[in-house]
Structures are given as structure tokens and as C-alpha cells.
């Protein structure tokens, strides 16, 4: 049995300790917002926050999160109104959308540590997230926009 907190709720799971957190989140707990894209920490679609920091769940064994706090896209905000989500809507970022939960989790983690990221900061923080639809230009614009929204007092 492994116990951890996910989106504010304590959960106990009875799974092999080496099972990647991704499959625990998606299949054991049924939260499918976190996606699978490569299984090798190459694409970022499986990104969640572990104690606030972005991690790739496809290479994180569930045993590594025992006692820790996991936040998935479903837990980022109550109403889908985190500044990053609001900016994503304004800028029309998503195309197919499949990479976007991972992009948003990476972007939210970036803004939590760097409230006014430069383009270079964005490159650093976001280059682990592939978008095959090619929404990078809008992601960059939306991160700058989210930074502004955040400063405007929105949480």
C-alpha cells in the first residue's frame, strides 16, 4: 500500500511500487487528464506537480511519491480559471489539445517560481514539452499573458 495526496485528497493504492505514477493516476485513480506520449521523459504530456515541482509521471515510480503531494491538471484550479488556463483560453492555444495538460502544468510551475519569465526562461522550462500541433508561438504568448494576469491580482 502506498499513500499520497492527490489534488488535496489522501489516497491509498495497492499497486506494485515500481509502477509508474502515470498509470496509477490514469488507470487506478481514473484521472485521465494526464496523458501518455512517450514513456521516456521525452515529451512532457504526463507532467504533474510533485510538491509543487513539475515531474514526468511516466518515469516516476509510484513509490517515490509516498507521503507527498501530487497535483494533476484536474486539481490545478477549481473552475479551470488558473491564470495559465485563462491565458490559454484568451490566446486560443490548444489545437488537438492532447499536449496541453502537460504544457499547462509546466507553465504553471514556471510561473510559481518566476513570476515574470523571460523568453529564455520559457525556453528552459517548456522545451521538455512537445506539441506536435505546433502551438509553441501561442504557448509563449499565453505564458507572458498569464504572468500579467497573475500580477493583476488573480490568485
Amino acid at each position: 500500500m502506498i499513500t499520497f495526496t492527490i489534488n488535496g485528497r489522501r489516497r491509498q493504492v495497492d499497486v506494485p511500487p515500481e509502477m509508474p505514477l502515470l498509470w496509477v493516476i490514469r488507470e487506478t485513480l481514473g484521472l485521465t487528464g494526464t496523458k501518455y506520449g512517450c514513456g521516456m521523459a521525452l515529451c512532457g504530456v504526463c507532467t504533474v506537480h510533485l510538491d509543487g515541482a513539475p515531474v514526468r509521471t511516466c518515469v516516476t515510480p509510484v513509490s517515490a511519491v509516498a507521503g507527498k503531494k501530487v497535483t494533476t491538471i484536474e486539481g490545478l484550479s477549481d473552475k479551470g480559471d488558473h491564470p495559465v488556463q485563462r491565458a490559454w483560453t484568451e490566446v486560443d492555444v490548444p489545437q488537438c489539445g492532447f499536449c496541453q495538460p502537460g504544457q499547462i502544468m509546466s507553465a504553471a510551475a514556471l510561473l510559481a517560481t518566476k513570476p515574470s519569465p523571460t523568453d529564455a526562461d520559457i525556453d528552459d522550462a517548456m522545451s521538455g514539452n512537445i506539441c506536435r500541433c505546433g502551438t509553441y508561438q501561442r504557448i509563449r504568448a499565453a505564458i507572458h499573458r498569464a504572468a500579467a494576469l497573475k500580477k493583476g491580482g488573480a490568485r
Partner: protein
Amino acid sequence: MKTGISRRALLKGGLAVGAGLSIGFPVVQAARRVARAQTPGVFAPNQWLRIDRDGVVTIVNSVPEMGQGSLTTTSMIIADELDAVLDNVRVEQAPANPALYKNPVTGNQAYGGSRGVRDHFDMWRKAAAGAREMLAQAAANEWGVPVESVETEAGAALHRATGRRLLYGQLVDRAQQLPVPQNPTLKTPDKFRYIGKVVHRRDTPEKITGRGVYGMDVQVPGMLVASIERCPVFGGKVKSFDATAAKRVKGVKHVVQVSNGVAVVADGLWPALQGRKALRVTWDEGPTAQVSSATITREYEAAAKQPGQVAKNEGDAEKVLAGGGRVHEAVYQVPFLEHACMEPMNATAQVTPEACVIWAPTQNPGGTQAMAAKLTGLPPEKVTVNTTLLGGGFGRRGELDFIVDAVETAKAVGKPVKVMWTREDDITHGFYRPATHNVFRAALDANGAPVAWFTRMVGPGILIQKGRAQAGTIDAAAVEAVRNMPYDIQNLRIEWINKDLGIPLGFWRSVGASQNGFIVESFIDELAHLAGKDPYEYRRALLGKSPRHKGVLELAATKASWGAPLPPGRARGIAVAFSYGSYVATVAEVSVAPDGAVRVHRLVAAIDPGLAVNPEQVRAQMEGGAVYALTATFYGRITIDRGRVQQSNFNDYPMLRINEMPVVDVHILDSGEAPGGLGEPGVPTVAPAVCNAVYAATGKRVRSLPIDRNELRRA
């Protein structure tokens, strides 16, 4: 029968809603859907829309949402012509039912070729305009006034003279009784409420919260999850397998042979993958095991020495070329490419003796239904296809292989099964854009203009391989954008040689134009430089018979300040092409580092898509097409070793990332023509514009993709 569809699955889809948008899973079968048209209190004049007494408009979108924005655009078109308010519109994804939902141009309920808007525009408008006329008539009858005096506006009918107004919801019962007009009057463009305006995407809320349901996210009660071990060699078959160790893995429930390999079926993907590792399969690899990239290149080169089939012949190019003068020759090559949709292939199916239900991220609901009917022996109307959101399509999801997996596995184990592909499965078992080898020859006159042009293309034909064109004919996809290149050249000969060595082929975003744009637009650039002319002016002078090409070329050049000085080390390149109904020109601005690394700083693109239904999504598709093309320009290469794909994941089949993203500046030229395609046209001009800029910067001509930085290194 019990459909076995969980309320949960249904709700997950049905409630994936923001602002009135709902991606419902249409679990009702087609027959029931038609019956529903007669439901009291629902006005349903045709298969595309219905309105209930609360005024909620439901639009049935037949075009799968794969990122191109069809949920938004389809709603815009129908809501506009209906005079409905977009915020009162919910969207449902159409069930598989070709009789009702086939593309009127292709006749199939399958979507590719950037056909969403351009093939349906008139039909949807007519369907919605007919409904609007019925609502207006219903109001006229209610008020006892002539219908000519009734207007519609924002979900209501009104009679201006008396100030009377009825909401559509109040008119449904009366409208339901009226005959459907055969030739309704369409709006004039000045009356458009949504078409041509910037409308935000309606599917964003579910895509930024994790609520949207992609194929991979489908959950059905009692569902098992399978992973399939496939023969590493294309076309190989299972000789025998030993499942003893696989079955010992906790959670593994079944190991069954299916046509694409051996399926390990478990209570979750993780145990299925462990079971798959423990599985022992002996393969009969078949003849493709003799094929490697080196063999393919050799065969192409040998074939290129022989005459090909004539795809186009005007004047006498061979004679002019033989006559000497300034003749230039070059060979261009492109590799196989895989689509690499962000969401790896997957599908879910349940098969009972009475019915089959499928949940799939598919571009081809009609083909899925027909395939499943064949595999299960059920009549097509007993096969329900729920099209989920697609995590990318790009042509890959028009194929049925991954859905065959699910239907066969579910049938074999008697339970609902989701088949999940790994990224490795996806890259090694795709349907690849053809690798080709192309010989060019041209003769220039005294002024440097081309008087003769010869192209011999060698490669396989997608349409012929798929049996969609006859062997021995010219494959239209193979010669696309070469046969119909826009330049005025008196003596023109295009030949094609079909050389198919058994690598499975597929339609890759912009198909033939994706590579032929590169070869034609690079070679014409060579001619311009050879003639000592400006590459923009050189093209422009040859576009006399192609005004729409010329229009975008001029717009891109102007917006990119073609000819104006650039910071030191930077250079520009230009290219123009037509594909899938739209005209695009791109100017690339690049610099090349001493180690040969190319940096693309900016792409300025001009597109003439005819009527731009949603300009913001035109720009989004152009930006996305640019990234797709840049990935091919810098990274894309699938190689074959003894019938096996050598790449397997994003480490050896890399994708462009945000740190390499140039500024993409898109300009829309409104030519007033009918809508063209958008998903694909952004691709073909990018590689040539970049490579032409690389030439301008370095004097080195890139004649094969992806760009090899070693060749650009300055010693």
C-alpha cells in the same frame, strides 16, 4: 441489447462542456437518431441540427476534431446561417452513418485532405438556411403575417412592423410541422454573424482542464487493456508464440493472437506491458526482411536511369534539353516520415453477438463501421462508432489498423477492450510518407528564363499501394504539386516511376505536396540563382497564368520586406505552392552558425484560402503547419534496416521544440473565392523557403532532407 456503455463514459463525454459546448458521445444508433427527429418538442429538420423548446440548438458535427477546430468552425457555419446564438449551441460528434454523414464530395464518411470546411460549406449552410426559413414561416403563421415580413436574429423571429418576437424555442412545435424547403435562400456575406469573424475556439475549456475525452481516456465498465506485440518486420506473421511467462504476470487475463500480432490483455496497461515483455513470439518475417534503406536508395537510383511514365508533357522538353545551351541538373531526395501524432494510436471496442460498439480517435468513422461489420459479421447498423477527440490526426488516423486491433481483441476475449499502442509501436508501425528520388533538368534561355523543364520522380504511390488507384497508372498523390506546378514553361515533361518496396505508405499532412513543394521550389530557386536573378522576381515573372500564386507571393514578399537589408549573417528564402484548395507563399529568415546549425528566426506566410471562415484558426493552422514542416526540415527521417524501422521514440525521431520556434507571421489574402483547405497548405512551402534562405546565407544547396548540418559547417 445492453450497449455496455457506462453512464460514466457517457457523462465524461457528454459533460465535457464549457460555455454550452458538449462533445456528446452519440451512443444512440443511427436508426434511433432518425426516429428522434420525430420527437415532440424537438425541431429537427435534417441530420445536422435540432432545436428544443428551451431554444438549445444541437449541431451534429461530422468532421472529427483533431485540432483543426472543426467543433468550432462547423458550429459557426451552421449557427450563422440559422441565425442562432453560438452560446446556445451544443455540438455532438456524428455517429458513423455514411447515409447521413458522408462527405458530399468524396462520398465517404472519412476526413482528410483538409476537406472539413471546403467540402461541407454549402451543404451545411443550406441545411441551416432551410431550418431558418421554416422557423420564420412558423412565426409568420403564428402571427398571421406574410413570411416576407418576418426576420430572424440571434435565435428569434421578429416582426419589425409590430415589434412582435418569438424565440426559436417557442417555434419548434409549429416549425416541426412544415415542409423542408428545397432551395432556401442563403445569407449574403454582409449578413454573416460569425463566418469570417474571429471566434474563440469552443473546445478550449475541456482541453485545458483535462476533461476532454481522447481515445486513450475512454473507460467502459468491465474493460480490459491490451498491448500488442507486433512483428518488427512489415508484413511479418506470427509463426508461434509461448505465453506461459506472460500469463504468470499478475493482472494478465488473456493472451490471444490477432491479425496484427499477439495481444496481451490485462486489467491495466502496466501489467499488459509486463506480460508483453515476458511473451515469446517466433515470427515469419516475410520478404520485407530483405529491404533496407540502402537497398531502397540503390533501387531508386537504378530506376531513375530508365524512362518513366509520362505524367505531363507539353512542348518538347527533351529536345530542347538535348539542344545544349545553359542546362542545369540536380537530384533531390526525401526520406520516409512518420506522423507521430501526440496521442499514440489506440481504440476501444466491445463485441457481443448482437452488436459492436467502438470508441476511437478516428478520421474515418465510416470506414471503421464497415471494417467492424466485416470482422464481426454484423450488419453495419449494429456497429456503433463513437468518435472521441483525436490527439492529432495528420492523416495517420484515417487508417483502420489500430481499430482492427481493438475489434479483434475484444471479440476474442468477449469483454470490452482498450488497445493501447506505445510510442515505439506508433513509430515502428506507421504508414509512412514515401521516400523519393527526383531528377531535375532545365534549360535557360539567354535571359535566364527556363525554356525547358524535366522532372523524373522515383518512389512508391500511396494510392496505388492502397488499391485506390490502378497499378500502372500515374499516382496522383505522388506527382501532386509537380504535375500542376504554376510556372509558365513552354517545354515541360514530368515523369514518374513507381518503385514500391513494401514499406506501408500513408497520407502525411499535405501528402505529395509536402515533399514536392520542397523539390520544385528548391530547383526553381537554383535556376533563379543560375540566371543571376532575384528569386522572388524570377518566380513572379513566371506566374502570369497563376494569379493566386502570384497574389500570395507578392503579399509574403511585401510583408517580409523582401530585399530590405537584414542584420549581418541573416538571409531570406522564398517559396510558393498550392495544396488542398489554398495558395501559400512563405519567406524564411535564417542564419547559419559556423558549426552548420541553422536557426530560423522568422517565417512570414501569406495564404489565400478563399473565404477564411475563422481567421484566427487560419493563423493557428498555418503556425502548426510550419512547425510540422520545420520538424521534417531539421529532424524527420525514418530509416529501414532489414524490414524494420530503426527509430522508435522522440530520442531518435525528434520533434521541433519551443526553444527552436521561429516567429510565424501569417497574412491572409481574401480573394473572395470559395473556402479552401487549411490543415495542410501551411506545410509545403516551409522546407524550401528555409533551404533557399540557407543557400542565400551560405551558398550551399540543400538537396536532401532533413538538413545535414555537417554539410553546412564552415571548415
